[in-house]
């Protein structure tokens, strides 16, 4: 019998299904935020149902919180009402909540890992498609809709059909200055927005093994941009070292036993995947999206593509995207001027991202006419960055240093693009209107974002004098 993939191992450990029964998957950790939960809690109330496992549920406010200091009230009454509803629901159903201003508050996919609650071998769900982030820990983590949020709250399980498995193997070594973000943009560009549909992706190979946990989170985070609900990386010593000492893991000698259990969350050597994509890491360069979906990727060294550069069935989409983005084919990417730079989001708002951006910003200044924001992913990230003096570096360079939240990634709070404004953003989606109605988003790495803020147009850190 062939060995099992990591996905199959986690599935087998969590599936409840008798003969002829619909498979149910047991959920170890359910993360909740203000946007996709209020209707689910209402559903529980209407049916007189309770939350089955409040101690396996953690909530935070992230999507629509303003990134002003917590002492500034939430100005938008609709957002304020939604944040209140989360507090009331968590209170009523006995769920731990990290509200705006709490030391543990932050983007839901940043706080799970940093608190040590996103653990290898677990099933983790959240009403948010970027739940795939937690797959970096060898956990099966995926986004769900509000009906499923209600189902998990009430039953601690989900009705699930088994997914197909895809290996994305990245051989070789990333070149200096090329980041996890560039790698995943390259992977999404290769797979397209639907290439991963129906699959769980396992990222493997030398270049993935060499990534830090934060880099692996960046890669797994954007699995959904290729259509895959979940991305996974097998457990190794990098995983164990990251988790050691975090609040949610076992202490002292008990941690050794816990880590030993976690080490089995790897695919067997003879496991067979349903599909495989193989990439050479040395061929990956700094990447930028030019269009309105995350697979519309081009090298920073390249130019805006035209109809001749894409397959015939992609031409209509290309022309629509170019019109929305206000771009002309053949324009060099480095010649495109910018209005806004956003460093943040569940893709790139962790301490390593801020260190990379801070190193670029140090001793320099944001170009005239550019608004640049840095939004740390959590209060813990913010505190760490401030301890390292990064906040001072950013402020001195003309960047805004803000409070944690999803912020301009999706523009639910006041941090938005104005119509026609163009941004370089470390977030995950360049959809039409994503960062504000009429806004034009280009996805980049933290290093490119910072260098572009300084230059006023797209640039790599190495371009700066």
């Amino acid at each position: 019998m062939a060995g099992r993939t990591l996905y199959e191992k986690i599935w087998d450990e969590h599936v409840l299904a008798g003969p002829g029964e619909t498979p149910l998957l047991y959920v170890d950790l359910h993360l909740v935020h203000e946007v996709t939960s209020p209707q689910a809690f209402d559903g529980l109330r209407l049916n007189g149902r309770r939350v089955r496992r409040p101690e396996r549920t953690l909530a935070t406010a992230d999507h629509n919180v303003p990134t002003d200091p917590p002492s500034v009230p939430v100005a938008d009454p609709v957002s304020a009402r939604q944040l209140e509803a989360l507090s009331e629901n968590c209170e009523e159903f006995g769920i731990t909540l990290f509200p705006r201003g709490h030391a543990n508050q932050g983007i839901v996919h940043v706080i799970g890992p940093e608190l040590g609650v996103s653990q290898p071998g677990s099933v983790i769900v959240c009403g948010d498609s970027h739940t795939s982030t937690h797959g970096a820990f060898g956990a099966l983590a995926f986004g769900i809709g509000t009906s499923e949020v209600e189902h998990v709250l009430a039953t601690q399980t989900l009705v699930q059909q088994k997914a197909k498995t895809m290996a994305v193997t990245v051989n070789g070594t990333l070149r200096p200055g090329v980041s996890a973000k560039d790698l995943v943009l390259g992977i999404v560009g290769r797979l397209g927005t639907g290439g991963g549909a129906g699959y769980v992706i396992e990222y493997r190979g030398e270049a993935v093994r060499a990534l830090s946990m934060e880099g692996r989170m960046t890669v797994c985070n954007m699995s959904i941009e290729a259509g895959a609900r979940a991305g996974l990386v097998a457990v190794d010593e990098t995983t164990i070292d990251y988790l050691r000492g975090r609040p949610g893991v076992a202490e002292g000698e008990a941690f050794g036993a816990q880590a030993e259990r976690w080490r089995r969350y790897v695919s067997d050597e003879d496991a067979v995947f349903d599909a495989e994509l193989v990439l050479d890491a040395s061929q990956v360069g700094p990447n930028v999206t030019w269009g309105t979906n995350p697979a519309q990727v081009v090298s920073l060294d390249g130019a805006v593509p035209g109809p001749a550069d894409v397959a015939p069935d992609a031409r209509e989409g290309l022309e629509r995207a170019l019109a929305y983005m206000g771009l002309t084919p053949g324009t060099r990417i480095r010649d495109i001027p910018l209005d806004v730079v956003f460093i943040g989001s569940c893709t790139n708002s962790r301490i390593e991202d801020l260190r990379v951006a801070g190193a670029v910003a140090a001793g320099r200044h944001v170009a005239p006419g550019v608004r640049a924001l840095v939004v740390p992913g959590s209060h813990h990230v913010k505190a760490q960055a401030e301890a390292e003096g990064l906040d001072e570096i950013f402020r001195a360079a003309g960047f805004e240093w803000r409070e944690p939240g999803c912020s301009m990634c999706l523009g639910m709070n006041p941090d938005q693009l104005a119509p026609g404004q163009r941004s370089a953003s470390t977030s995950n989606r360049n959809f039409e209107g994503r960062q504000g109605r009429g806004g034009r988003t280009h996805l980049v790495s933290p290093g490119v974002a910072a260098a572009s803020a300084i230059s006023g147009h797209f640039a790599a850190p190495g371009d700066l004098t």
Partner: protein
Amino acid sequence: MVEGRALPLGRADVDTDQIIPSEWLKRVERTGFGRGLFSEWRDDPDFVLNRPEHAGATILVAGARFGTGSSREHAVWALMDYGFQAVIAPSFGDIFRNNSSKQGLVIVELDTASVDELNALIGEDPSRLVVVDVETRRVEVPDADWQRAFQLDDATRERLVNGWDDIGLTLRREDEISAYEVRHASPSWAGRVRA
């Protein structure tokens, strides 16, 4: 069974941010999202949803990869609140497909050539009756004698036909869930990571 006019959206890669922009996600209600459906495109008077010949359509015909991106179930609520009961496209986002099945929005996957043919038929006569039959898993345009079969797994089909409450069904298996919980210890963080 869904019967009615079909509206040819005709675009590929329509993500859930286009279906319902994030400004609509601040609401705590489950109703009233129809006004936000494709709201950034509806400012254009020529946008297909604004054309009188398509008023009252109940079936949306879209391009490939419809409903990718964000997990927001609000996209399904918006389509249904507007009046759509089925969406036909060459492919769909996984989470959107799942959310649709929970709400009773019928997802019909047809190959690109069939979707193009259907769009041509609607183009000829927007008032044409289109039928999506969940029981027989067929799409039909009766007056053009045009039919296509589509795939629909048994569980989703049963759920659509019977309007089952998934949570109620799962709670009937509570003994099984409790037995699983007895076999598996609580995680190391349970009860330790507190506000």
